[in-house]
């Protein structure tokens, strides 16, 4: 399967080729999990959502349009699943009168663990829309046009969400340089 593009693999999967799906899973499971871990900051939940994302790929292959770039389509599914989970979590927390806070079960990754943990703690304090825009633009390398297309908003609105997210992160993190 090496050398075959994601889009070709997805087309093959849509034709019923199961190994093509497994190749896509092997290529993207880690990336999807990384994105979800940053979005929800909860290890077991990120793993569950990763599974949900790939189940969605299987169930929704009738909605995949030939010519659609696969990675943005896949991460859109992951982002939608994360949003739904976070909305549900907020609902549960609101009813339990216990707002979520602080670090969670995701272990500190490589690099500067203290700084990274500060950033990830701060990310969790952003509204979901801003967090999504920051993670996708800063960490996944999406353009604002791509984020806008995913969310059905204008590119300017996507830029504004990310900008507000960066502003809030700056406030939360104090002196951290080179935020955006």
């Amino acid at each position: 399967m090496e050398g075959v593009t994601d889009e070709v693999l997805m087309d093959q999967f849509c034709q019923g080729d199961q190994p093509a799906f497994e190749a896509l899973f092997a290529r993207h499971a880690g990336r999807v999990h990384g994105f979800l871990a940053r979005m929800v900051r909860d290890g077991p939940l990120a793993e569950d959502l990763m599974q949900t994302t790939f189940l969605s790929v299987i169930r929704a292959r009738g909605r995949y349009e030939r010519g659609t770039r696969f990675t943005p389509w896949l991460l859109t599914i992951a982002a939608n699943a994360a949003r739904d989970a976070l909305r549900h979590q907020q609902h549960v927390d609101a009813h339990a009168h216990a707002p979520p806070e602080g670090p969670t079960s995701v272990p500190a990754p490589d690099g500067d663990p203290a700084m990274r943990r500060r950033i990830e703690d701060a990310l969790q304090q952003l509204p979901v829309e801003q967090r999504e825009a920051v993670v996708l633009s800063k960490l996944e390398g999406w353009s604002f046009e791509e984020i806008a297309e995913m969310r059905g908003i204008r590119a300017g609105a996507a830029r504004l969400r990310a900008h507000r997210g960066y502003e809030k992160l700056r406030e939360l993190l104090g002196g951290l340089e080179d935020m955006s």
Partner: protein
Amino acid sequence: MSHPSDPWRSAPPRLDPKAMERALAASRAELALKRPVRGWRSQAVGLFAASAGMALAVAGVLLALGRTTGAMLMGRAPLLALLLSTGAVCSWGALSPRGRALRQVGVGLALVSAVLLVLTRAAPRGPSTLPEWVCTVSHVAMALGPLAVALGVLRSAAFDPLRAAVAGMAVGTVGAFVGELACEQGPGHVAIYHLGAWALLTLTTWALSKRLKPRTYAP
């Protein structure tokens, strides 16, 4: 690519191989079910067929019972065609993965149809023997089948408020269509009891779709 000096770009949390195995096993189990894959186009056609089919079936019954005539049907043909077109555009727009512009067109068509339903309605010929709310109840009752279809197909994608509302508008065309043939009340009645039912169905589809857990989170 990882950049150790940049805390933003350090590697994300590693995926536990056991979790990866579990996800892959769940995917294989899903594939082993060999559920039929339905494209969004056939779902859109199904939603339109449910709405238009119900409208045309009730129109046929009204014709057979003599409650409406061929002449009346022909006289209202442009408006009835507009309602069917609205149903088609709304159905297609609601299910299309990239149909945001079409959804907006669908909303526009529904608004034009609603305005025309009121403006083209003649003054009532005489007092009705039935309470006015009967029209609202009939609208909603006739739309229950298409509503169930709409809720089923909407679960194949992530919830989107505009998508759900437009599907509800497609569902509401049934009552609007039949109301043109079966009701002889004036424009005020249409504005309140017919369009009210259409709005109620749009709102109901939106609210129920929001509550139902989607089968997929695809766009």
